[in-house]
C-alpha cells in the first residue's frame, strides 16, 4: 500500500512536470487574452468618436458650420435644403423637460417612500415591480403613448394633434421614474442611520427627518440621478419616433408635432437617402450633437456624485 501511494505520487509529479510547459503557456497567454477583451471596450469608444468625427466632417464640407449652429430651419428634404440644428434641439429638450416634470417629483417621492417609510417587506415587493417597469422595451412604451396616452389626452385637450410633444414626453417620464427612484433611493439609503436617530431623538417627525436630514445629506446623489435621467431622456428614440411626429420646429407648443434628434436619425434611415448624400451625412452631425449632449450630462453627473458627496 505504501508502495502504491508512493507510486501514484511520483506519477502525479511526473504528470505535473510534463504539464508544466502547458501551464506556463496558459499562464502567460491568458492575461493577454483578457487584456484584448478589455481593449475592445476602449476600441468601441474610439470607434464611436472617430465615426462621428469623420462623417460629421464630410457633412460640414457640404454645409456651413455656421448654418448648422445658427439657422433655425431644418428642411433637409426641401429643394433648397436648410440644415439648422436648433429645431431638433428644441424638440429634444422639450420632450426631456416634460419627462423630468413627471419623473422628478414622482421618482423622488417614490425614493423617499422606499427609503424612509416602507417596511422591508413592502420594499421587497415594490422594487421588483419598478424593475419590471424599467425593463419594458421602449417600443412598447411608444405603442402605449400613441394608442393610449395620446387619445386619453385628446379627451382633455381638444386641440391635441395625433403626433405631439406632450404624450411622448409624459411616457418618457414614466419610463425614467424607476431610474430616478432607484438611484435616489441608493443615495438616501447610504445616509447613516445614526443621523436619522439623532433627528428622531430631538423630536422630529418622520417627514422632517426625511426632508430636513436625509434629503440634504443625500443631495449630491439625488441630483446626479436627475442629470443621468435627463441624459437618458435626451437619448430616447422609439417613444418619440412613434408618438412625437416628424415636424422639426422651434415652436414651444406641446400640443403639436415635433421632431427630436433621435427621431430625425430614424426618419432618414427609414427613408431612401442614398449613401454619400448630404442627407445621409446629416445623421452623423445630428448623432454627434446628441453624443456631446449625453456625454456632457454623464460627466456632470459623475462630477456631482464624486465631488459633492458628503462622506460620513
Amino acid at each position: 500500500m505504501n508502495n502504491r501511494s508512493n507510486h501514484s505520487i511520483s506519477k502525479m509529479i511526473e504528470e505535473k512536470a510534463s504539464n508544466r510547459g502547458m501551464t506556463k503557456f496558459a499562464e502567460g497567454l491568458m492575461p493577454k487574452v483578457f487584456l484584448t477583451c478589455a481593449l475592445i471596450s476602449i476600441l468601441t469608444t474610439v470607434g464611436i468618436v472617430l465615426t462621428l468625427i469623420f462623417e460629421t466632417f464630410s457633412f460640414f464640407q457640404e454645409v456651413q458650420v455656421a448654418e448648422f449652429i445658427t439657422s433655425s430651419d431644418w428642411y433637409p428634404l426641401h429643394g433648397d435644403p436648410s440644415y439648422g440644428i436648433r429645431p431638433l434641439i428644441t424638440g429634444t429638450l422639450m420632450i426631456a423637460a416634460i419627462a423630468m416634470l413627471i419623473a422628478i417629483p414622482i421618482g423622488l417621492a417614490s425614493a423617499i417612500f422606499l427609503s424612509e417609510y416602507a417596511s422591508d417587506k413592502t420594499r421587497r415587493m415594490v422594487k421588483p415591480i419598478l424593475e419590471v417597469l424599467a425593463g419594458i422595451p421602449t417600443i412598447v412604451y411608444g405603442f402605449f403613448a400613441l394608442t393610449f396616452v395620446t387619445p386619453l389626452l385628446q379627451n382633455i385637450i381638444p386641440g391635441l394633434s395625433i403626433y405631439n410633444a406632450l404624450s411622448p414626453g409624459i411616457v418618457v417620464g414614466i419610463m425614467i421614474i424607476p431610474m430616478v427612484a432607484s438611484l435616489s433611493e441608493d443615495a438616501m439609503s447610504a445616509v447613516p442611520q445614526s443621523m436619522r436617530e439623532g433627528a428622531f431623538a430631538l423630536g422630529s417627525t418622520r417627514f422632517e427627518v426625511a426632508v430636513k436630514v436625509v434629503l440634504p445629506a443625500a443631495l449630491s446623489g439625488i441630483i446626479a440621478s436627475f442629470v443621468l435621467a435627463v441624459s437618458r431622456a435626451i437619448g430616447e428614440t422609439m417613444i418619440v419616433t412613434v408618438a412625437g411626429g416628424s415636424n422639426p420646429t422651434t415652436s414651444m407648443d406641446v400640443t403639436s408635432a415635433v421632431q427630436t434628434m433621435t427621431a430625425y436619425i430614424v426618419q432618414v434611415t427609414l427613408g431612401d437617402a442614398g449613401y454619400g448624400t448630404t442627407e445621409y451625412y446629416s445623421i452623423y452631425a445630428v448623432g454627434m450633437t446628441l453624443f456631446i449632449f449625453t456625454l456632457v450630462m454623464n460627466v456632470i453627473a459623475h462630477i456631482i456624485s464624486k465631488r459633492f458627496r458628503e462622506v460620513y
Partner: protein
Amino acid sequence: MRAVGDETATGYTQGKGKNAANISSREIKSKLFKGLFIGATGFSLIVLLVLLIRIFTQGIGFLSWDFLTSFPSRRPADAGIYSAFIGTIWMMAVTAPVSFVLGVGTAIYLEEYAPKNRFTGLIQMNISNLAGVPSIVFGLLGLTIFVRELSLGRSVLAGGFTMALLILPIIVVASQEAIRSVPAELKEASYGMGATKWQTTYRIVLPAALPGILTGNILALSRAIGETAPLIMIGALTYVAFLPEHLLSQFTVMPIQIFNWTSRPQEEFHFVAASGIILLLVMLLVMNSIAVWIRNKFQKRL
C-alpha cells in the same frame, strides 16, 4: 413617585401648550406627506397595470398559432411574426456568445489581472461612459463599421455584433460584481495548494462567480431583445417574408416588426402590434424568471 412624575408632565405640557399644538400639526403634515409618497409610488404600479391590461385586451384576439407561424402580410388578419421571431433568435445566437466572451473576459482582466494604474482606471471609466451612450449612437457605429467598413451588409452578423457592443457594459459590470463577491479565502486556499493564477481563476473563481455572471448576462440579453433603434440604424428590414439562412442574410427582429405595425395608420395593425408585444413581453418574462431562479438557487451557497 408616580404623582410627582405626572405633575411634572402636566406642568410641562401646560407650559409648552403652544408647542404641543405645533407637534400635532407637524404630525398631520408628516402623515399627509406619507400618503403623498405612497401615492407617487402607487402611480408607477398603476401605470404598469394599465399598460399590461391595455396590451393584453388589444392583442389577445390576434394571438394564435397562425400568428406565430405566418410571415408579415398587408392584410392584418393574415399578418404573423414568424420571420421576426426567428430573426430575433438568430441575432441572439450571435450576440450571446460574443458579448459573453468579451464581457466576462474584460471583467476577469479588471478584477484579477489589471494593475492598479491610470490605464486600468481609464478602462473602468470608459465602460461606465459607454453605458450612458444612447443606443442609437451604437446604431451609427454599427452602420459605419460593421455594415460599411467591414462589408458585412445589413446582416444578422452586423446586427448581432452591434447589439453585443451595446450590452457589453452591463455584462462587464455584473460580472465584475460577481467575481468580486467570491470570498478571498477560496482563492488563497487555491494558491496555498500551489495553483497558479489562471488555474485559480478558471477552477475556483469562475465556477463560484458563474451564477452571478449568468444572471447578469441573461438580463443584458433581455435588454438586447427589446432594443429597436440600433437595428433600425443598421438596416434590419421592416418587411421580411423570408427566414435568415446564414449569418450574412438580411433579417428583421420582433421590436422592429412591432414598430412597423405600430406606425401603420390602420387600427387593425395596432392590434397585431399588441399581439407581437405580448409575445415579446412573454419572452422577457421567461428570461427574467430564469435569471431570478439562478440567482435564488445559487445565492445561498457562498
